[in-house]
């Protein structure tokens, strides 16, 4: 990359993930949960990461916070986080419990999880839990922290915030708990919000409320959002850019229109075709044959080739395709579109 491209990237992006690999050393061998994943999120962007269970989307998010659980290890790549003053920090190089990452985690990068009940402490009041984050990162003054917490609860649409501050998580419904989690994440005015399936456990009308809240907060705080989900509908409604993950790798990456109107990877195509849509008159849904293999000691081959109806025998099953830019900002990892191989060490 030459100097000007580097400068341009720095001016626009908030986080740049390059060749990130996360491996779990388990009894059966090495599980490649995240395998050379690269993407860049621009400031104020709504970036969607989509994939089925076990594809590595959550581990990718955990790496960005340096919260990969044991025995997982980041074994390669970099995660450059661009600070407000223009400096960049490689999060991979930081000590995962040191002061530098703690200044970023929860402060500049905040996260909302899928299950709000297990992310909140049942024995501390909502107010205390909210104030803890504020006092760690924003102000040490208890009075001020209280005011900020109150303001945040009001902002995320919790009625009667003064009374709610003293209540406990079990007093709150699922949707309200998720609002508290969002209030907590937003209280330090993060520049990047990671939302990991925040509406999966919620009903569709409550999901609409939470999506609306996330979109509003994004505009209000000028933050970027990394939205992780398996729901194609949500991606289509709120995201600008999308990366499709399969078996630890990004197989396709592009604008939301590219992915939905001109999907190139056979997996993306099948995923779109197997989603039932209201108003679409098909008697049978397309399916993807077989199941996702476990990414332990897999042969060097395209991860999707065993299930792919378009595979080229003798090509797809003996080499790993590289992620190549086929059209402007539309990347695909597939031999049908480009014969370049990934060099696997």
């Amino acid at each position: 990359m030459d100097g000007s491209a580097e400068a341009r990237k720095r001016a626009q992006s908030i986080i740049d993930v390059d060749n990130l690999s996360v491996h779990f050393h388990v009894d059966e061998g090495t599980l490649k949960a995240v395998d050379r994943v690269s993407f860049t999120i621009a400031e104020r962007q709504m970036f969607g990461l989509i994939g089925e269970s076990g594809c590595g989307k959550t581990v990718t998010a955990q790496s960005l916070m340096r919260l990969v659980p044991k025995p997982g290890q980041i074994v390669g790549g970099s995660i450059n986080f661009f600070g407000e003053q223009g400096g960049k920090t490689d999060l991979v190089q930081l000590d995962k419990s040191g002061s530098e990452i703690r200044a970023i985690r929860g402060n500049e990068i905040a996260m909302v999880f899928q299950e709000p009940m297990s992310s909140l402490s049942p024995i501390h009041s909502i107010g205390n839990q909210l104030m803890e984050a504020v006092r760690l990162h924003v102000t040490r003054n208890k009075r001020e922290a209280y005011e900020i917490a109150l303001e945040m609860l009001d902002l995320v649409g919790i009625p009667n915030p003064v009374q709610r501050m003293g209540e406990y998580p079990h007093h709150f419904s699922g949707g309200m708990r998720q609002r508290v989690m969002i209030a907590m994440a937003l209280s330090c005015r993060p520049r990047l919000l990671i939302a990991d399936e925040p509406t999966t456990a919620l009903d569709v009308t409550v999901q609409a409320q939470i999506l609306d809240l996330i979109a509003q907060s994004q505009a209000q705080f000028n933050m970027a959002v990394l939205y992780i989900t398996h729901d194609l509908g949500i991606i289509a409604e709120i995201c600008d850019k999308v990366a499709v993950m399969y078996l630890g790798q990004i197989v396709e990456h592009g604008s939301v229109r590219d992915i939905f109107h001109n999907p190139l990877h056979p997996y993306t195509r099948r995923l779109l075709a197997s989603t039932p849509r209201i108003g679409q008159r098909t008697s049978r849904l397309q399916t993807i044959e077989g199941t996702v293999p476990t990414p332990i000691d897999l042969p060097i081959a395209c991860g999707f080739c065993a299930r792919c109806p378009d595979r080229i025998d003798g090509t797809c099953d003996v080499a790993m395709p590289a992620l190549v830019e086929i059209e402007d900002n539309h990347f695909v990892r597939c031999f049908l579109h480009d014969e370049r191989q990934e060099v696997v060490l």
Partner: protein
Amino acid sequence: MSAQPILKVEGLKKYFPVEKGFLRRVVGQVKAVDDVSLEIAPGETLGLVGESGSGKTTVGRCILRALKPTQGSIQFQIAEDRIVDMAQLSEGELRAVRPHANMIFQDPFYSLDPRWTILDIVGEPLKLSKLATGKELEDRVAYLMEVVGLEATHLRRYPHAFSGGQRQRIGVARALATNPRLIVADEPVSALDVSTQAQILNLLQDLQGEFGLSYLFIAHDLSVVEHISDRVAVMYVGKIVEVAKRDQLFFFPKHPYTEALLSAVPTPDPDVEKERIILPGEIANPADPPSGCYFHPRCRYVQAICRDEEPTLREVSPGQWASCHFAEELNLAGAPQQPN
């Protein structure tokens, strides 16, 4: 409906008492299901949708008599010339009726006993109803495995050896074991990934054609319900607020709650512009429901009458029933139509 329905539920109620204190005094009732009526024709799929806490699972469980209804009748046609009222049967009488109706559960990880082989799991209903034993039982289970797309040779394996989609197939095989006429499927695909979900939905449709099954398909995912159902009923706080043929309900809804539900479903197409109705608040508490129409605190068309008077479920256009005071006047938006 012209054909004799295989299932006819009338005035079904299920109340759970709220007890308090040392003497367990009953201080109130949770009206989980409150005056629900529905019909399912032979070979038909009725979709039942609603949010958590709307009572849809309780309806399914009452129909199969996993729960004893508080009130109402459940007329189930178990043979051409025999109709029984499931609500009135004693436990002993139920034993003979149970083979005719079965259930598919939501979670394929918790609904299969990890210490039982597939032969035990799928064969249990056959043993209980004394339909087969020994070699005959084994043959029947092997046949069922093939019907649902699993290897018949895997009979002696345990559930942990199968993936989520395969386990759900085992659940389907078990439900089919006794040759039932009616299957209550309670969120059968909501724990599965998109690609696996499509496989199970196709399987359910194939089996319906092959065995002439009727389904009560309970789900909260409207796109799945739209795909598989012939008719759809929408529940809200223990009551059916709208029931209609699939296309009527999805494209010409007559109840404001149905309209809001439809608008909340994300469309997998970035170019479809639609107005998303954000309902204020949350589903009402069935132990302490609001006055009048239960939906009025969240309804954007609310009028004075809605706070005082409960609307009745009535036929507002042929085959379409809705319980809203203004069902005839309101011009509600349905789901966006898609070109094929």
